[in-house]
């Protein structure tokens, strides 16, 4: 089970979502992707997308206005 971090700090929509989708393509089932974001819209559209395709998502607030979205690839 690999773990990968994707730095999207300072990026605005839809860049974090597109980067996340690309990164997920190259990962195996069971792998975990941690996306660092500081754009609040990405806190909605990334989990919305990931859940809609069936991945497990968790959001962690790491600082004021900064989050980690933890996605485990399920299929």
């Amino acid at each position, binding site marked *: 089970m690999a773990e990968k971090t994707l730095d999207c700090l*300072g*990026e605005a929509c839809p860049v974090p979502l*597109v980067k996340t989708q690309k990164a997920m393509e190259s990962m195996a089932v069971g792998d975990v992707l941690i996306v660092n974001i*500081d754009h609040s819209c990405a*806190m909605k559209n990334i989990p919305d997308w990931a859940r809609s395709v069936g991945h497990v998502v968790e959001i962690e607030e790491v*600082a*004021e*206005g*900064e989050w980690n979205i933890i996605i485990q690839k399920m299929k």
Partner: protein
Amino acid sequence: MSEKKKYQFHELYLKKEWSYQTGAVLLALFSLALVIVTGKSWGVTGPLGMWGGWILSKLGIAVDTWAGFKATPVASYDIWKDLPALTNIGIVVGALLAVLLAAQFKIKKLKSIKNLWAAILGGLLMGIGARISLGCNIGAFFTALPAFSLHGWIFWISIFSGAAVGSKLLVKYFM
């Protein structure tokens, strides 16, 4: 008691993002209220154009001789009488308040020089486009729909097709 339980009101109403449905209903209500209270159609870039003209006039440039400022000269511009301009200031103050109440305020670092250029060029193009078409997504859409104006729907179709093409270009050339 956990922190979340203790500050339940804060967590539910100020911190957690509202649903798209809640947002849509509130936007529609406030859009209507704005017309009732101010009696004006709100546009963002109209006042921004006036502010730009005002700054240029302070720098000694005679903008009032330009065609764009013929109808509303900068010399007689009074921001306190420009209700759409005050709404613009209100929306910035309101957004700041919301993000502070949610404890999510952050000054973002610039990721790269490429992003800086994209922001400057994007802003310029948006500004020019919005002024030539006499309105942005507020004046041409948000204000138009509650007034049952056809131009709002035409704008809606156009901006969606533009955004669709734009995102394809973004993915292809910018990432």
